[in-house]
């Protein structure tokens, strides 16, 4: 039995169904990230776990106990909000202790708890300040402290990093990950940033239009996306989704990629998924991540299915750590990720290595993965 179980959860506002039957579970000490574009229902789902929104159908259980009819304060949860939601009229210490004060914890005990949390988050010197006197990162820490001090069964984070600047966001992301590792708490975390999802999660639920598209570990989501939406949403730069044709001869299947005014590229697929045979002579979407499309020297030496083809490079983007090259296949811009020192000129042709063991195929009609 999992620690957090969400079972057939539905949420309707009038006739509009916001959440259409969510089934998710998380083990104790796990880190679940709900990720998806805005309006996908991820924040609503978090609010229903917190009890700030009522659910229409289904059940939410924490540690085997149904909590969906309990008041937020009775659920043994703590929440960190996007705007931090620090009480402006109270000091940092007052903010952290407010929940304990409401539960009637004696002052001495409160002080001890504040000191403990302040030490963990290194905010001891800020305890007597008001939230308006803090920087964004400090406010973020205080908000986490307010959640941490309750020692709850479940932590809820609602886009906690989206108000920070890029550098601080990376710092705080590591901070949260470290906190999770040291305290071993169970966390549900909402974000629209797929990098946060990949780096933090032990389990990811990719959501769209009130439905969980795919639920699994970051590696599963990244390497085996279940449909085009997940493949496109996770990963930066995004996966290349190239219209292609499946060709078959006696030996096996091969992928045919059209090129402008040149011979199409034909990539033999000895290890093609079984379902691909049904698409012989039909159109599919050929998905290959930029790092699986690289210069032959940079390609994985032990990659079992490397195929090389000459490609016309249109744009070169040196990003410091890597060089991205854009070519055109199947009528679409396709991004390849090369070594930083790859000698490559726009407007020329260069051989690119396709790591076909990492390639995935989608049915263009249903947008589902071909397995």
């Amino acid at each position, binding site marked *: 039995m999992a620690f957090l179980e969400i079972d057939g959860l539905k949420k309707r506002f009038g006739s509009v169904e916001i959440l259409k039957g969510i089934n998710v579970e998380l083990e104790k000490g796990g880190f679940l990230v709900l990720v998806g574009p805005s309006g996908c229902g991820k924040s609503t789902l978090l609010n229903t776990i917190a009890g700030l929104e009522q659910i229409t159908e289904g059940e939410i259980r924490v540690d085997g106990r149904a909590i969906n009819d309990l*008041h937020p*304060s009775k659920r043994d949860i703590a*929440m960190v909000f996007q705007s931090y*939601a620090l009480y402006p*009229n109270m000091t940092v210490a007052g903010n952290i202790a*407010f*929940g304990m004060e409401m539960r009637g914890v004696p002052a001495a005990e409160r002080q001890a708890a504040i000191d403990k949390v302040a030490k963990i988050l290194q905010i001891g010197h800020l305890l007597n300040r008001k939230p308006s006197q803090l920087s964004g990162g400090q406010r973020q820490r205080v908000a986490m402290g*307010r959640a941490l001090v309750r020692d709850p069964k479940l932590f809820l984070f609602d886009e906690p990093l989206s108000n920070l600047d890029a550098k601080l966001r990376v710092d705080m992301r590591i901070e949260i990950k470290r906190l999770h590792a040291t305290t071993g708490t169970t966390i549900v975390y909402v974000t629209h940033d797929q990098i946060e999802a990949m780096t933090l999660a032990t389990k990811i639920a990719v959501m769209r239009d009130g439905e969980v598209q795919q639920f699994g570990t970051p590696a599963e989501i990244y390497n085996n996306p279940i449909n085009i939406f997940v493949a496109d949403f996770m990963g930066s730069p995004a996966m290349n989704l190239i219209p292609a044709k499946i060709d078959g001869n006696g030996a096996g299947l091969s992928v045919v990629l059209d090129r402008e005014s040149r011979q199409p590229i034909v990539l033999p697929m000895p290890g093609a998924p079984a379902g691909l045979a049904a698409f012989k002579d039909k159109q599919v979407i050929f998905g290959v991540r930029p790092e699986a499309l690289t210069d032959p020297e940079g390609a994985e030496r032990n990659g079992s299915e490397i195929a090389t083809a000459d490609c016309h490079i249109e744009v070169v983007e040196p990003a410091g750590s890597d060089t991205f090259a854009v070519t055109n296949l199947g009528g679409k811009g396709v991004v390849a990720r090369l070594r930083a020192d790859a000698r490559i000129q726009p407007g020329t042709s260069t051989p690119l290595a396709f790591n076909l063991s990492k390639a995935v195929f989608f049915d263009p009609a249903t947008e589902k993965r071909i397995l």
Partner: protein
Amino acid sequence: MSAVTSPARQASSGMSARTINRIVIYGLLALFAIFYLMPLFVMLVTSFKTMDEIQNGNMLALPHAPTFAPWIKAWSEVCSGLTCVGMKGYFWNSIKMVVPAVLISTLLGALNGYVLTKWRFRGHTLVFAMMLFACFIPFQSVLLPMATILGSLGRFGVTLQNATGFNFGFGNSTVNLVFVHVVYGLGFTTLFFRNYYEAFPTELIKAAQVDGASFFQIFRRIMLPNSLPIIVVTVIYQFTNIWNDFLFASAYAGSGDVMPMTVALNNVVNTSTGVVEYNVNMAAAMIAALPTLIVYVVAGRYFVRGLMAGAVKG
């Protein structure tokens, strides 16, 4: 060369145009300020003059020998109708009316605003629209219905008096005025607080809920401490309106020793025995105006700030 000289010429002519603009603007502002402050000035200087000086001197001249006698007389001796005990009793009547009325209407307005923005229920817009409508009802039109209600409350007070020996404030003129002003102030105070709380971050309420705070704990610990600007606006607005009210005061407490300041002042000025003592009248009027002036001076800078906060964010 013309290309070189013309920007300089433009700059200098622009400068002088700006100076003229400034002079016109400040001149007009000063003129209007003088126009508005003139009556106050005349009142103030007259109240410190002797009757001789008033009858023989210039209205705008400063007093030759300033005297506090008119103020003392206005405070403790002047005749309102036939009773000659000064304004002090009526001043306290007004205080006893205005303080509870302002506090209760402000608190209820805050509570209404809190519910109408953070605990929304089906039909909350209709309730708010009806409260807003109360702001536009002319007070004259409610005089008679309100008199009927106050009459029934008074009779209920008599019943209580007979049954328990105490009327619990029913039928008391000051309590009646507090009730009337609270009821008719609620529309405005609710409007002020609703607009202010509309922009108040809802995540704070959610955080407090998760922290386990109850409805009233959130109100008292989160909402009220962060409402200072709008509380100041509401208090100033309500204080000025209630203190200066003459219509309800004269209708429901228009005679005897329960009169508020405004009614008493009117009686003082209209008392026609002997010469009209302008200096005493002016001093009495100054005493009547002083509390609102003090409230403005003390809290005025919050007034504009709070009004803008409500207006822009709401």
